[in-house]
């Protein structure tokens, strides 16, 4: 099985802070991580590769420092890693990103399965997966929480709000994975050594993949961000202090008022 996994380096939103004066995101010094759902997708790909004696290629579009997550992918067990890096890609919305990734995937070629994380924790759109599948004209299965390879197809458990579906798709096919699909694992020491000593990260520019320059980058993206702001903070409420019994009584009365509990 030849599997390509698309991963993204994102700021660790756990560590993200809002500048209280400006109301903007403080981006300096924020540690970056591999997008969690992409890591799940990658680990799934590696498990499938181990079962089917295949190959996993990790692909990422980003600035030069995104090489770090590709090294991490290698350390976790990916066989090859490719970084799509070019100023021309900068500022792409999901449509343009799908074009870039799709073009790169076509260049890699000969793949059986494409795995993506369902969504990234910075953009939260969940669009790049399906849009890339459309670009490549291959079927998509989103919200996967379990994947099984059977003959030349995949059997996927697709999460729904009120249950799940079992879907079969022919290969090649693109699947977006949720974090329920497996447990997070860490790279082993040996994996890290191999990633930094034996394996390489290839860097491709827009020209290397012969990208259609009119379909990538900031100015060619159909959507445009008009404004960014921090949402109105809720405003601090009341701090209740005092003897336990009274404080609790206040709360219980409040709940009765709001009809959240029945007042007997």
């Amino acid at each position, binding site marked *: 099985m030849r599997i390509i996994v698309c991963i993204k380096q994102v*700021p660790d*939103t*756990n560590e993200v802070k*809002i500048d209280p004066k400006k109301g903007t*995101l403080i981006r300096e010094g924020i540690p970056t991580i591999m997008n*969690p759902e992409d890591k799940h997708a990658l680990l799934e790909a590696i498990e499938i590769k181990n079962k089917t004696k295949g190959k996993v290629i990790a692909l990422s579009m980003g600035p030069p420092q995104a090489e770090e997550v590709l090294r991490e992918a290698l350390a976790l067990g990916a066989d090859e890693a490719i970084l799509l890096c070019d100023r021309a890609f*900068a500022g792409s919305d999901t*449509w343009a990103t799908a074009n870039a990734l799709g073009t790169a995937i076509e260049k890699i070629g000969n793949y059986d399965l494409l795995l993506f994380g369902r969504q990234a*924790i*910075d953009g*939260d759109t*969940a*669009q790049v997966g*399906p849009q890339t599948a*459309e670009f490549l004209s*291959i*079927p*998509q299965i*989103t*919200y996967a929480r379990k994947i099984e390879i059977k003959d030349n197809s995949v*059997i996927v458990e697709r999460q*729904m*709000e009120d249950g799940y*579906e*079992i*879907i*079969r*798709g*022919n290969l090649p*096919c693109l699947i977006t994975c949720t*974090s329920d699909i497996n447990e997070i694992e860490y790279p082993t020491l040996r994996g890290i050594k191999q990633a930094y000593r034996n394996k390489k990260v290839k860097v491709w520019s827009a020209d290397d993949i012969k990208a259609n320059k009119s379909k990538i980058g*900031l*100015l*060619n*993206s*159909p*959507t*445009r*961000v*008009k*404004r*960014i*702001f*921090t*949402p109105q*903070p*809720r405003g*601090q*409420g*009341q*701090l209740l202090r005092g003897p*336990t019994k009274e*404080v*609790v*009584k206040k*709360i*219980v009365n409040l709940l009765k008022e*709001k009809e*959240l*509990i029945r007042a007997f």
Partner: protein
Amino acid sequence: MKVKISPICPESSLNLGGVILIRGEDFKEVPDIPEVRNAVDKGYLEVLKEEKKKTKSVKKEGSEVLVFAEQRNNKIARVVFELLGKARELADKLNVKLATILLTEKDNGLSNQLIQYGADRVYLAENSLLKNYQTELYTKVIVEHIKKTKPQIVIYGATNIGRDLAPRIAQRITTGLTADCTGLDITEEGLLLQTRPAFGGNIMAQIVCPKHRPQMATIRPGVMKAKEKDKKRNGETIRVEVKISEKDKKTEIIKIIRETKKKVNLEEAKIIVSGGRGLGKKENFKLIEELASLLNAEVGASRAAVDAGWISKEHQVGQTGKTVRPKLYLAIGISGSIQHKAGMQNSDLIIAINKDPEAPIFQIADYGIVDDLFKIVPEMIKQLKQ
């Protein structure tokens, strides 16, 4: 014309077909080439006022606002009525008709429902192959329809189906799509203004799609308000020709499993009692469970509690867990990291119990109790039992 880089341009320098512009430079004479036009349209360049040419007006093609009427098991998804409520406002502002498109096996009165909730027009696509959502079939039908009727706006619910379908369509017809919007409006220029959260809700972004059509967005369920059902409302139902076959399907649904209430359903819960690291150990979650059962509530947890193995991941509330909007969220022993806040900050009423007065959760709690949870919670349980 004379231009300079505008404050909202994300780049500090632009190379537009060979014309180099650097932020901070004053207005500069530039040729009227497509790359420059593009940048002006996007608002990345300010044009010196006296010479301000009107930006290419948006083509007024077929004017409808279209709502995707998602149905499951022959029931209209609740979010669709919310969408109709909002879309009605948008259509009225634009002075155009509000249409919906319904893909189903058989109508069974669903189109009437849509009209009663505000639609002027229902495009009905009936076919046994459309009974259950399938990416390729639904995409094909809707794309065909969009190409024919050219709506200016199409909106979908940001459900598991909507988020599978909308991007596929957007890519196929080459247009912009904004995900998971919590706000929709019309700008002075008649553009759809799409407001959505990013970074787990810590940042709000306003997006527009200036040139491509239709402008598309998926809308988060539970945010917009549905209009009152009006049984006397009239509208038209137009049959859509459906040209699909079994061969078009690239994936096959083998089985659909509907899970019963047993599953943890935080997203629908009215009250959530949530425990965090302050509980100290696994056994203390019993306190949370007891309080939850007294309040008829679901049990939630912070990531710290889940990571420590005190409770399973299905209970996790937060950016990497579930996003919830209950009427009441009780945060017990939870510090309130940004990651957690992202998951519950839109709850109607937030009450927090934490012995640390500096805990960030108190910044968003409506009521905060600074005290030992091991004193407060048992007392609450006691008083509630009375």
